[in-house]
């Protein structure tokens, strides 16, 4: 039995710092996705929301909040919270419902409103909370990105100019994306002139936090065919595996890796696509384009290797050759990536899938890549959450 489901429609609320309630962004995205699918809201049988932690009680019941705002019509409901992978987990819940035959059509939606400034832990003194402890001793999110970036410099000979080139490329891509928050081209000199935040990473190497919303209408293949959308892009895999003990890298918000005395160290980032490729029966060689979580510019290069799009240490070579541009043979972050969006946590993994859907349908406008057949997304966030989704024609 095919485990594929169809993407009938996608929609987004533009990313920005709008300062409004997250539900508003989600509903705008959902309405667009419903219209794009050519169905009616009443056709949706399952609403699966990616949860935000930043809006108190309503945030935890995102699925229901979106459903109410769209007009309660008795659909089944779900809310998934999995940090940066929240959207993918909500999508996986929808796929399970569809593949088990419990529903034909589902709406998956995620949206966030972010506070101004640094992300900080909740108040209070909590020695058993790793997120509190690491801030107490002065370790912020950019610390982790910078430690990984420094490893690339030491192990592979990557340079700060390579990292800047990722930003320049993604800024060019996002310039043509109406949903991106930052639509401005930058030169390598401008990136190099931005303030150092966490050596070797500068302000323009690190992504911001944003408000935004993304939504997807998914269905069984039979339903897609029935409404004349048998050729819609399909979701071929959703990987949401946990890390495997022992951790190879110090992961946010931890202050240490696992001890690898009794079990060998394992890469979490590399494990996420591995499961996705297996599930889809697709090889990394088949991938036409990738949307990866560039929390930092250097991290985009790590992801390319984790996705097996090139050998370890070779990502900068592809970048320098222009292969990862929209016009290249393996476009990475054709949307502009987090560099142009900033992170809206529960929406971001869905936004990645939206971009792949537009690309595979040939509807990405000025960002359109050359005849893509298979796209892959990748992201990783706090507390062992991450995901990888494969979309194919």
């Amino acid at each position, binding site marked *: 039995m095919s485990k594929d489901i169809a993407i009938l429609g996608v929609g987004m609320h533009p990313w920005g710092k709008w300062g409004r309630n997250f539900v508003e962004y989600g509903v705008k995205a959902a309405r667009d996705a419903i219209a794009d699918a050519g169905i009616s809201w009443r056709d949706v049988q399952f609403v699966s929301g990616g949860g935000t932690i930043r809006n108190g009680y309503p945030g935890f019941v995102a699925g229901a909040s979106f459903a109410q705002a769209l007009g309660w019509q008795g659909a089944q409901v779900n809310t998934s919270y999995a940090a940066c992978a929240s959207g993918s987990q909500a999508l996986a819940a929808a796929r399970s419902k569809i593949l088990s035959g419990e529903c034909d059509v589902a709406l998956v939606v995620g949206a966030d409103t972010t506070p101004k400034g640094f992300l*900080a832990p909740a108040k209070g003194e909590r020695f058993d909370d790793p997120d509190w402890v690491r801030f*107490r001793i*002065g370790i912020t999110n950019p610390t982790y990105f910078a430690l990984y970036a420094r490893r690339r410099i*030491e192990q592979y000979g990557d340079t700060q100019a390579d990292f800047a080139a990722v930003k320049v490329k993604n800024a060019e891509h996002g310039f043509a994306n109406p949903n991106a928050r930052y639509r401005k081209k930058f030169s390598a000199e401008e990136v190099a002139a931005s303030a150092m935040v966490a*050596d070797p990473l500068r302000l323009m190497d690190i992504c911001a936090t944003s408000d935004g919303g993304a939504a997807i209408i998914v269905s069984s293949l039979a339903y897609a065919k029935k409404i004349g959308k048998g050729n819609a892009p399909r979701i071929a895999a959703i990987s949401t595996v946990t890390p495997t003990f022992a951790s190879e890298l110090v992961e946010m918000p931890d202050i240490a*890796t*696992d*001890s690898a005395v009794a079990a060998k160290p394992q890469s979490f980032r590399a494990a996420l696509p591995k499961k996705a490729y297996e599930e889809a029966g697709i090889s990394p060689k088949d991938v036409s384009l990738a949307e990866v979580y560039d929390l930092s510019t250097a991290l985009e290069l790590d992801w390319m290797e984790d996705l097996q799009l090139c050998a370890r240490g070779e990502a900068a070579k592809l970048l320098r050759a222009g292969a990862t541009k929209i016009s290249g043979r393996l476009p990475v972050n054709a949307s502009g990536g987090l560099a142009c969006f900033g992170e809206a946590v529960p929406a971001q993994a869905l936004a990645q899938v939206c971009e792949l859907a537009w690309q595979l349908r040939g509807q990405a406008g000025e960002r359109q890549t050359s005849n893509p057949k298979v796209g892959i997304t990748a992201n990783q966030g706090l507390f062992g959450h991450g995901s990888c989704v494969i979309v194919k024609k």
Partner: protein
Amino acid sequence: MDAKVQEALLPGWYTLDADQPHLIGTRCTACGTYYFPKQSTFCRNPDCAGVEFEEVQLSRTGKLWSWTNACYKPPEPFVAVEPFVPYAIAAVELAKEKMIILGAVVDGVGVEKLKSGMQMELKLEPTVDGKLTWKWKPTP
């Protein structure tokens, strides 16, 4: 530095030995896995049912795995000097425990003085609010 009057920023996480401090971790008596911060309930090795842990002092030296710095003041609960002075941060690999542990680098040692693989040792330094915390320092 008088240990009697000095309070730890994270009580019980390290010895207050002025010259030769150690981070305090635990070790699963069944599979030998080390834990920092301490783990004392269930072993996290998926193939180990261990529930007994011994408290251990971790190696106080290791190799520099990676490093960075904080050019901007972190948010609370961090307590910073005003005006803020950037500090380096090290990720140090302990050979015996086979783990990497983060920590700020001692005052006065910036990223320009750090090199991959260099030997680092554990030190204690007071924070602005007068509590002792662990720092990594290149060994001479």
